[in-house]
């Protein structure tokens, strides 16, 4: 058995077990998440040692069959999902974490299905197969959104699923047109698609569907409500991982499409710039902490999309490597942030930003984790966010793309502005805190949030590893 087939099978099997029995859901879920992380590491080691792997499922070669392509990019993404997953699972396994009002064990099957779908998506080299993985991912993500069972969450879940289905159908229409134009739907057909008018329309439809799923401006309308009304563990997964799946596919297609995908890349960069400004503006005005963090995801997805848009294809790797590092940094930092916000809201009993100035409660580990994550999102050294932005700006300056440099700087300043709204309130000590103020208790959630925030920090120092992995491609 290879790591690739185990890493897609194991989460699905565990999802079945946890859905069947709520009693064993927690231990099985934790073990499966840990085993998935171990498999992700083994997979990355194998890719580092032996180069990219191509597996023809059932022995049928593409285009008739479906292939798994395990290259460096796929390995990095699988590792990202595995690490964020472990932290989120740790928080979710805490008995005291407030759980679904509808079904106490419902988190685990939904999370494991999300994980299995994402692993399958990162490995898949077939357009139609990608569509099916998106459907699992979409349904499981909607379940995670609805987990709290509140009316607001259910409404957000309904809008999310409607938007997700519309996005899926756009994607499916694009795949259908790709079939009509080229007769086959494996990823090797993408370069041919860029050569005909029909093929280009098909790619545009696919990108539009992906933009809905990645909540890329101006198709992000469903996202702030969904991400801010879900339970903290669910928001962390949705914001850190689920939107990345669509961005990953866009990157994959943009790399495969080469120079022919240029108009799509320009559109992505422009939409990304719009998202950065729109998301930052709303984050500056948000009155609730979770809403601020959700709008910050819109802005950060914009930055990543901008980086992908200005990257000129596979041959010149600097810029898209920077984009991938920004994706990793955002995954860790944003998951840490949502988990921290969950803990802060739990201690305070609310998540109003104006109410973060408090006298009776000292800042705890969650506030610290939020601040560290904020440092990474803003892109200060030595975090992964810093390395990603540094490489991106350096690459842009090399190409004399000064407008984009200015936009990236503007986005950075804005992110510093909206995140400092929170950090400046959280970390204030001294006269603002009453002498007898209590300290929040340590919880599993604090460990998870801190662990992720520190991972984002350390990834900046250890960014050689993802860069080395990304060099490995299928030849």
């Amino acid at each position: 058995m290879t790591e690739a087939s185990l890493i897609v099978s194991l989460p699905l099997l565990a999802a079945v077990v946890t859905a069947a029995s709520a009693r064993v859901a927690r231990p099985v879920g934790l073990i499966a998440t840990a085993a998935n992380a171990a498999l992700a590491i083994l997979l990355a080691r194998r890719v580092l040692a032996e180069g990219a792997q191509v597996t023809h499922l059932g022995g049928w070669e593409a285009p008739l069959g479906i292939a798994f392509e395990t290259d460096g990019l796929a390995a990095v993404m699988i590792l990202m999902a595995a690490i964020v997953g472990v932290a989120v699972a740790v928080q979710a396994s805490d008995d005291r974490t407030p759980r679904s009002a509808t079904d106490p064990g419902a988190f685990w099957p939904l999370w494991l299905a999300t994980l299995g779908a994402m692993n399958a998506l990162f490995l898949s080299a077939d357009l139609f197969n990608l569509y099916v993985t998106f459907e699992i991912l979409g349904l499981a993500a909607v379940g995670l959104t609805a987990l709290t069972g509140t009316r607001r969450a259910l409404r957000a879940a309904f809008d999310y699923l409607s938007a997700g289905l519309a996005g899926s159908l756009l994607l499916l229409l694009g795949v259908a047109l790709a079939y009509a134009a080229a007769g086959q739907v494996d990823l090797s057909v993408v370069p041919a698609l860029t050569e005909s008018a029909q093929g280009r329309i098909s790619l545009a439809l696919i990108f539009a569907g992906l933009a809905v799923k990645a909540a890329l401006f101006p198709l992000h309308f469903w996202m702030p409500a969904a991400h801010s009304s879900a339970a903290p563990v669910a928001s962390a997964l949705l914001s850190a991982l689920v939107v990345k799946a669509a961005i990953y596919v866009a990157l994959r297609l943009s790399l495969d499409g080469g120079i022919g995908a240029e108009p799509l890349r320009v559109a992505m960069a422009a939409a990304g710039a719009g998202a950065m400004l729109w998301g930052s503006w709303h984050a500056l005005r948000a009155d609730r902490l979770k809403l601020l963090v959700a709008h910050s995801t819109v802005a950060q997805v914009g930055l990543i999309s901008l980086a992908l848009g200005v990257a000129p294809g596979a041959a010149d790797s600097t810029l898209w490597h920077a984009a991938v590092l920004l994706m990793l940094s955002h995954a860790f930092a944003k998951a840490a942030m949502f988990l921290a916000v969950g803990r802060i809201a739990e201690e305070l009993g609310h998540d109003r930003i104006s109410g973060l100035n408090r006298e009776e409660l000292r800042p705890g580990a969650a506030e610290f984790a939020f601040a560290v994550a904020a440092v990474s999102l803003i892109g200060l050294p030595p975090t992964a966010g810093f390395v990603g932005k540094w490489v991106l700006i350096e690459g842009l300056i090399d190409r004399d793309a000064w407008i984009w440099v200015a936009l990236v700087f503007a986005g950075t300043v804005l992110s510093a502005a909206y995140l400092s709204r929170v950090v400046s309130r959280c970390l204030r000590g001294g006269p603002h805190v009453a002498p007898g103020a209590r300290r929040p208790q340590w919880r599993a959630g604090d460990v998870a949030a801190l662990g992720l925030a520190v991972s984002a920090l350390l990834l900046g120092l250890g960014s050689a590893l993802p860069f080395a992995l990304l060099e490995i491609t299928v030849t």
Partner: protein
Amino acid sequence: MTTDLVYHVAGAGLTGLALWRLATCRDALRRIMALNVLAIGIAMVLLASGFDAATGRTDPVPQAFALTGIVVLVSVTAALLALAERIGGRSND
């Protein structure tokens, strides 16, 4: 004029009809139905593309895609309807 051309027209028509309804209607149930019609329109242009008028056969691979699409669609429809029942009808107000 060939068979596949007729179904290309019908498929494009169904798609347009569904998009119009999605743009102009707020009722949750009706929007879900419009998404179903949209999916059927897509399946129709897909199968019409796979149809070979000369031999009268259809490529089995898009047939499998259409079948998968039908099953995926009924799953998502059931989930959407369960959510719609919980929030009661209107999709935005």
